[in-house]
């Protein structure tokens, strides 16, 4: 009795060590050759633009963009990066409590975000600043939670861009449920759920795969494999490439070069179309790299080598597209200068906007706990207002805000008759 080969075509790799990721990267680059076989046992990266800025074709995924569209992607990425850099600066200056940088993931985010239609719905993690950009979400909205003035607070339905979700993996189920609703409504929109390589280990993500498959929900699972979950490399989450997980749940998975904005756009478009056309879910793994720290409080020197980062700098998604634009003569210095200027304007707007962002009123603690009111919240609001007022009357100094509390508390209390 013997097990000559693995039964389901699995490739049990050696566990431990970063060896499994490295070959994948190398192999990724060989995929440049057009028409490379896609069904080999080894992971293969869909790529349409090499790190050297050369346009290559792919057997299954193609794209044909106008110069305007190409420049648009470049502009998106540059502005997103600038916004991100500004946020890091603002954090250093104490204007933000924390920032989760997307540096290095611009192509994965802009490419996938630009693949969505306005009627599609996006469920991000906490790092999708670039996707937000493509959905016309005001960048200032993203900063509220990092400044500590709210937990998000924007209207998800305004741009079909859900709130950031911090607890890892949860949003994949929300996206799946939303997609089930889309299907029920007979709408032809699709839903896209972002998550990370680390998140792929959460049970919720697996359950999302199950529900999406069973209900044939129009949802694209978009995994940005930036190769790190804080300090843990992807081998701590999986010993095979993450895109392969989809097959076991009965839907297709594909790995795309996450630093190639054209490939990401093409693959995500196809995946969304797959979903919209009633074929159910699809998993896209964008193979990319977190160039910066996990967040501004993280210190990556404790756990990863500088060389790794340096290697990835040569695959920079913005540089790559710029090289291509240059080679093709699609953009000139004047164009770049104008983008640079736009960046400056954006950065200033963000800077000014953050600095003038108002702190929430103390009594906001009691707001929006319930939609239909709750007697205890009303009681505690009133008590706390009274407590605060006792200081006011002691000091007699800020009587205005005292009135504010009282009036707010009263109007809310009245409006919030419990239950129905």
């Amino acid at each position, binding site marked *: 009795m013997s097990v000559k080969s693995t039964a389901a075509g699995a490739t049990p790799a050696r566990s431990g060590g970063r060896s499994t990721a490295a070959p994948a990267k190398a192999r990724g680059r060989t995929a440049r050759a057009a028409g490379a076989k896609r069904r080999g046992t080894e992971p293969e990266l869909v790529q349409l633009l090499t790190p050297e800025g050369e346009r290559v074709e792919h057997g299954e995924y193609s794209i044909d963009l106008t110069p305007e569209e190409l420049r648009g992607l470049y502009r998106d990425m540059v502005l997103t990066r600038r916004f991100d850099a500004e946020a890091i600066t603002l954090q250093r200056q104490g204007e933000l409590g924390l920032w989760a940088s997307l540096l290095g993931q611009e192509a994965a985010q802009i490419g996938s975000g630009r693949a969505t239609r306005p009627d599609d719905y996006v469920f991000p993690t906490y790092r999708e600043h670039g996707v937000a950009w493509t959905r016309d979400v005001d960048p200032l909205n993203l900063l509220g939670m990092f400044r500590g003035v709210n937990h998000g607070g924007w209207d998800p339905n305004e741009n079909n861009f859900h709130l950031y979700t911090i607890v890892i993996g949860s949003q994949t189920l929300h996206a799946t449920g939303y997609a089930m609703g889309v299907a029920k409504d007979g709408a032809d929109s699709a839903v896209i759920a972002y998550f990370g390589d680390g998140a792929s280990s959460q049970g919720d993500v697996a*359950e999302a795969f199950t*529900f999406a498959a069973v209900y044939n929900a129009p949802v694209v699972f978009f995994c940005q494999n930036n190769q790190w979950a804080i300090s843990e490399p992807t081998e701590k989450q999986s010993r095979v490439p993450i895109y392969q997980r989809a097959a076991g749940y009965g839907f297709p998975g594909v790995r795309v070069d996450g630093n190639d904005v054209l490939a990401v756009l093409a693959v995500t478009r196809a995946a969304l179309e797959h979903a919209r056309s009633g074929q159910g879910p699809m998993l896209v793994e964008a193979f990319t790299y977190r160039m910066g720290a996990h967040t501004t409080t993280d210190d990556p020197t404790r756990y990863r080598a500088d060389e790794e980062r340096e290697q990835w700098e040569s695959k920079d998604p913005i540089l790559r597209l710029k090289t291509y634009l240059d080679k093709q003569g699609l953009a000139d210095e004047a164009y770049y200068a104008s983008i640079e200027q736009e960046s400056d304007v954006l950065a200033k707007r963000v800077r000014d906007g953050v600095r003038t962002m108002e702190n929430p009123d103390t009594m906001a603690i009691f707001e929006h706990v319930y939609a239909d009111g709750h*007697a205890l919240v009303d009681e505690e609001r009133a008590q706390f207002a009274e407590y605060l007022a006792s200081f006011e009357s002691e000091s007699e100094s800020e009587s205005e805000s005292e009135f504010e509390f009282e009036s707010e508390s009263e109007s809310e209390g009245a409006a919030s008759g419990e239950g129905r």
Partner: protein
Amino acid sequence: MTQMSIAKALNESLRTALDNDPKVLVMGEDVGKLGGVFRITDGLQKDFGEGRVIDTPLAESGIVGTAIGLALRGYRPVVEIQFDGFVFPAYDQIVTQLAKMHARALGKIKLPVVIRIPYAGGIGAVEHHSESPEVLFAHVPGLKVITPSNPSDAYWMLQQAIECDDPVIFFEPKRRYWDKGEVDTSAVPGSPHKAVVAQEGTDLTLAAYGPMVKVCLEAAAAASNEGRSLEVVDLRSLSPLDFDTLQTSVEKTRRLVVVHEAPVFYGTGAEIAARITERCFYHLEAPVLRVGGFHAPYPPARLEEEYLPGLDRVLDAVDRALAF
């Protein structure tokens, strides 16, 4: 006015909700052809189709998580958790997402999700089928927690839960499913969050909810034979909790015993005791006493009769309270 069991009242209530609002969905394990293990959803899939009454994969986090997504899309999912002990895989989605998302969005989205949980013991079941985890939800801001004790409340409170724009944890006293009572499906119900005096009395107040209301009513009857007049308050809602009605009662009777199945330690009775003592400090002739579960896992079925608060233990506490 019709005579029906709690189980039937819940079934009718779901049927009415599915009829009235095309956005209402029923989802859970085995809710379809089987009609749920307690038959609460009996016949609903047949009448409303698989699109409205949905058999889900066996994954509670997935059920609640996708219900949240459906709510975001404008649906009003009514989720069935098969038994109390199986809600915990969904606990994260409930307390971290469902309870907080409305606040996270500063009110810009609503989460009208009802989670029905058959709870508490008394049916001779195996482990995990008899638990009373209500405080683990009532403590969490953003959730509402209600539990009916009779068919009329079962019918109306479930309607109200489904109409509510907030997430509601709806605990169903499973061992009372087959108890019958009058239901007026055309009445105008009061707030689901108001307690009601189920039995008037003057000497002591018994506060209870769900399955224990019946025990307290029986205790009141038994006590009246001994010349004692007990008032029974059916709390109905655990979040919010109607302290006003309780306070009025205790200011009259001056003594309070809280009865529930859940472990006493950090149980719902603690909050009631603490707050009523604060509100009625000068009225109370005795400390608020609590009768409930022990600090031990729910025991095997052969022990549950002795484990569960029954007439004797309630009356023992009444005696002790009156002895002060």
